[in-house]
């Protein structure tokens, strides 16, 4: 039974904590922010109604402790927990403990998190929902693997069932290497993820990462809020995201959006989620990759073109209001592009560069939005993700959004730590990127031409 939400525990940090607090302020909801020792003086800690220290700097003993987070919610009288992204956001254990303790989890059910968290299971859910998947499948014995590999054809990928975000995958260019790569991948997966299972998959030479933002009411009704193109990636980490996906054929786009909705409808998905697809440019086909059962880093580009506050919708769905929006309410206009600003040094192979931000000047202006927790004097601790800000530009069309974003980055200044700001400017200035619709190999080629 849905209950009113008056006070939310935020089990996260950084920019997303600030982002959630802002929406709660607008909704008149009180916030309790979990902080580690390293984050006691963060911007989020100052903005929240109250901050509670849940543990030492090490995330394993603070932001990743399910019991501590739920205890903090109970001890501070919170009705609900917002997990943000990363950390505990896709841990079924947290959703389940919340269910047991009568605390509202702002997100999907534990069963839904489990259904999409296991890659093999998600894949069979996709097949059942008539959503195309990459040709391939799980393999046990070497003989099984060889037979399937012949069917898929080279090149192909060996992927760890427990992997994700680009971790635990290997490319096989020649099928004679299959046996040895399989052995290695399985051993590595066992060590890294505690699960040695692997599967094979067609390797798409020229692919784009296109994903669909969804909202579900938990009772079978799902709407989409358009797609996002996140093909500018370095080692499978997204750096630039935008909506709409440039030059995507209209008919393909319609099929892609419908497929995503079908997938989530079948699960009676609750809350905000994203279905990720690999778009095979040469074949004009798309394949289901995975579903992320959380709010995503790149959600602002969708918010900019739809004028819908996705965090507010998450809270509404978890609360008594429910999902009030219908598909007819979603009418995206214009284009939005986001750059992730990371505390990392492109000149020394993108090494993280924690430290103190001695001074900072974030851009402003028409169509410009900055989501960040970094103010002059802010510390970037070495224990967490290196992303310190997202700079987003909206425009009536892609060209104007790109122009605004380029100008905004030119007016950004971050002192005291190394960042990828100049590297992002180089990406935006690239003629291929300006044309739009680059594939996931774009950044590798850019770095091969001229290292950062």
């Amino acid at each position, binding site marked *: 039974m849905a*209950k*009113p939400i*008056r*006070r939310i525990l935020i089990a996260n940090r950084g920019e997303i904590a600030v982002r959630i607090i802002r929406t709660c302020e607008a*909704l*008149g*909801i*009180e916030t*309790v922010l979990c902080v580690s*020792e390293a984050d*006691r003086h963060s911007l989020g*800690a*100052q*903005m*929240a*109604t*109250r*901050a*509670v*220290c*849940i*543990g*030492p700097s090490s995330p394993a003993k*603070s932001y990743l402790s399910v*019991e*501590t987070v*739920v*205890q*903090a919610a*109970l*001890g*501070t*009288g919170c009705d609900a927990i917002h997990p943000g992204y990363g950390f505990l956001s896709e841990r079924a254990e947290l959703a389940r*403990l919340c269910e047991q303790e009568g605390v509202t989890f702002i997100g999907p059910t534990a069963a839904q998190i489990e259904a999409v968290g296991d890659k093999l299971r998600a894949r069979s859910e996709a097949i059942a929902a008539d959503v195309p998947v990459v040709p391939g499948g799980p393999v046990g014995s070497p003989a099984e693997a060889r037979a399937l590999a012949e069917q898929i054809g080279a090149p192909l990928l060996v992927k760890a069932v427990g992997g994700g975000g680009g971790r635990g995958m290997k490319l096989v260019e020649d099928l004679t290497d299959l046996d040895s790569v399989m052995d290695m991948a399985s051993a590595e997966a066992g060590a890294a993820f505690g699960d040695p299972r692997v599967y094979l998959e067609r390797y798409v030479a020229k692919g784009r990462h296109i994903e669909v933002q969804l909202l579900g009411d938990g009772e079978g009704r799902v709407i989409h809020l358009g797609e996002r193109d996140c093909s500018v990636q370095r080692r499978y980490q997204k750096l630039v995201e935008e909506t709409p996906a440039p030059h995507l054929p209209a008919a393909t786009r319609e099929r892609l959006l419908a497929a995503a909705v079908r997938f989530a409808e079948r699960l009676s998905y609750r809350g905000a989620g994203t279905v990720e697809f690999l778009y095979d440019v040469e074949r004009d086909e798309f394949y289901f990759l995975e579903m992320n059962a959380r709010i995503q880093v790149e959600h602002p580009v969708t918010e900019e073109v739809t004028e819908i506050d996705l965090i507010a919708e998450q809270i509404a769905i978890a609360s008594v209001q429910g999902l009030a929006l219908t598909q007819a309410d979603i009418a995206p206009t214009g284009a939005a592009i986001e750059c992730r600003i990371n505390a990392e040094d492109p000149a020394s192979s993108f090494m993280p560069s924690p430290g103190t931000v001695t001074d900072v000047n974030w851009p402003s202006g028409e169509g410009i939005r900055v989501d960040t927790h970094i103010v002059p004097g802010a510390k970037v601790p070495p224990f967490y993700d290196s992303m310190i800000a997202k700079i987003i530009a909206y425009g009536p069309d892609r060209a104007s959004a790109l122009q605004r974003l380029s100008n905004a980055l030119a007016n950004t200044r971050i002192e005291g730590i190394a960042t990828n700001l100049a590297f992002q400017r180089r990406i935006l200035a690239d003629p291929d990127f300006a044309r739009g619709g680059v594939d996931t190999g774009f950044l590798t080629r850019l770095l091969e031409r001229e290292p950062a």
Partner: protein
Amino acid sequence: MTLTRKDIEEIMGLLEASRFDRLALEMDGVKLELERGGAGLRERPSTGSGRADVAHPPLTLSSSKGRAEPVEARRTTQTAPAQPTLIPSPPSTSPAPADGLVEVKSPLLGVFYRAPKPGEPPFVEVGSRVEPDTVIGIIEVMKLMNSARAGVAGEVVEILGVNGEMVEHGEVLMLVRPD
């Protein structure tokens, strides 16, 4: 019969779940008036301490003699949602205590208990002697009991942690005068 604090909190919960803004209850000579303050009434402190002084609900309990007495000592002129309030915790980075006292801090966030079981005497009292490995309390995290130890040898001078209340990681539980 009288209304306990727990009763009042339950009534507050009922009001909150209802679509009414105000509730007046009169029974056995006790009059209880509750009013829903609505959203967005909290104020952020300008000091930037991150701790809001959230007001208690406008709660008055009138006795049969008609003399209104505030139930809560800490009342402000602000109205607030009919909900148990967020009580700011003591500053986590308090200055070092005077007189060379040592702060014994909670090793984790949880509910602090001074005794091994309800009804039993506390592990330590003011004046107790402690060694570094003396158990001074229990921190419960989701039904898991963790011992908190003194970490210093000396005499307990002051006990700050409240039995049965949540303490944060690093919150000062007691002060010890070291040997």
